[in-house]
């Protein structure tokens, strides 16, 4: 176990923002905190990174506490907002941060290469686009070769190419270096990439499981058909769970059974759609509301 968190609680002026959260994160895992805005994800990350102290609770990373300098050496953080200096160039920013670590590992050129920063190295950070900034932010977070990388909504507001690039490099990194990643997101497709998901709402963990288990328990695959003959449909579907909604029928059925079923339904339907259960369903089922 790389990171263990017990009974973590944070109150701001008697308002409970994070309520009794327990986490255990394995080395090399990609863990997602999924939740709507204001769920307490960022506050949790800020406590895990040692920026704010918890009101109560224990955080241990390899036996270290967040207040120790060795703890800082082991973690890298990509903040929600950019935290580099606008007036300095990308290179000056990265070099100045590198100098602030005692045991800096000289992999900077490597990172610059991987995140395609070569062409913007001498530009001022302030004039970069959102996607470029984010790439620099991630390199800054990796500059001292941490074991655990925190990403606080890393891809919010970015275009699809940048998102893809970031995810490609991060997954390569995980393969190469066993980097552990903890990210907060309200993008469901990003949470689907995770090995383990904590669904957080109102400061509490309301579900903690692998994506597959969550899908099995809280999301259903749905076959939607548009029948030409409604009468015959109900006979064929007598053994299935289904819902009629106007001209369409939603049948809750697993992938392989769906093939058999569709064969039977073939003569009486005009068209059909099949949709796998996703994180959206999970969230909807868990909280009774969608992710904003």
């Amino acid at each position: 176990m790389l990171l263990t968190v017990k009974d973590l609680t944070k109150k701001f002026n008697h308002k409970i923002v994070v309520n009794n959260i327990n986490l255990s994160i394995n080395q090399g895992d990609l863990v997602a905190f999924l939740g709507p805005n204001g769920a307490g994800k960022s506050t949790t990350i800020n406590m895990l990174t040692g920026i704010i102290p918890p009101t109560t609770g224990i955080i241990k990373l390899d036996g270290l506490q967040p207040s120790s300098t060795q703890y800082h050496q082991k973690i890298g953080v990509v903040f929600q907002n950019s935290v580099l200096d606008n007036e300095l160039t990308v290179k000056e920013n990265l070099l100045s941060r590198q100098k602030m670590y005692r045991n800096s590992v000289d992999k900077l050129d490597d990172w610059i290469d991987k995140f395609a920063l070569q062409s913007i190295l001498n530009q001022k950070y302030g004039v970069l686009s959102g996607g470029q900034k984010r790439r620099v932010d991630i390199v800054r977070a990796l500059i001292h070769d941490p074991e655990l990388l925190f990403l606080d909504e890393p891809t919010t507001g970015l275009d699809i190419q940048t998102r893809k690039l970031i995810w490609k490099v991060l997954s390569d990194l995980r393969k190469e270096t066993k980097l552990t990643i903890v990210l907060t997101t309200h993008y469901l497709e990003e949470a689907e990439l995770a090995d383990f998901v904590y669904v957080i709402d109102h400061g509490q963990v309301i579900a903690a499981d692998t994506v597959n288990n969550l899908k099995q328990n809280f999301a259903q695959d749905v076959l939607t058909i548009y029948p030409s003959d409604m009468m015959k449909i109900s006979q064929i579907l007598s053994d299935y769970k289904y819902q009629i909604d106007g001209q369409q029928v939603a049948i809750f059925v697993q992938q392989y059974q769906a093939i058999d079923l569709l064969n039977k339904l073939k003569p009486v339907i005009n068209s059909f759609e099949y949709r796998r259960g996703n994180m959206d369903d999970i969230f909807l089922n868990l909280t009774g509301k969608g992710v904003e």
Partner: protein
Amino acid sequence: MKGLITRNLRLFFASKSGIFFSLMGALISFVLYLVFLKQMMTQNWQSVPDSKNLLDLWLMGGTLTVTAITTTGNALGLMVKDRESNRLADLILTDQSYLKIHSAYLLSAWLVGIIMQLAMYLIMQAYFMIQDGIGFESSILLPLLVVMIFSSLIWSVFNMLLFSFVKKVDTLGKISTIIGTASGFFAGVYMPIGNLPNFAKWLMKLTPVPYDSAIFRQVMMKNQLNDSFKNAPTEIITKFKTEMGIVIGQNFNNDLKFMGLALVILAILVIILYRYNQRVVVNKV
């Protein structure tokens, strides 16, 4: 810590407009003097030989004090900006302790103050050399540098104390405006201290500002005073010195002692508030 100081200095000197506005207070006092104060005061001290030269040096002394106050304040503004933008959190995540981060702000402001005072001195010296033909005295350079170093230190500590709990750049701007305006009055560059009512004099003397000006003036005007008042009776010299704020506490040593005491008090306050400040500034959402 070297990395932090380099970063802070780079950020200060990267912004041309920032440098200009940090010198605003000093430039105002310089320009005001050129436009009308100079003429008014030369008339007042007509009887003194070479009064123009004497007053040029007098103005330079006060303006250097204002420069030290506003430029160190401007450099320490970075501390507040880092707090607001969350950059402080990022810096805390490095191997640098909060104490080192804090000290780096102070040391960079100190350096900025020295550099900017030197620059301001050179500008004014060059101007008055061309315009009024005042001489360049190499003998005062070393003592002047020492005073600059000292004055930059005390105002860095003062501004650090002032900004201890400021978290918003907006508040910082308001405080800077007040300080920038007040510093010119307290340094006695808009108006010699002798022309002010007693209450104002008393108020000024409670702060280190007029003492700093006085020390600068004593160092810079020493030779010219000796020349101009060669044959004058002591009471005339003393009157000139007190009226013009060249001596505040009877003599140079007393002024120096007062400044030293002020530095110690300010430094102690900064240290006392340090822990509390760390909690308030860092512990935010």
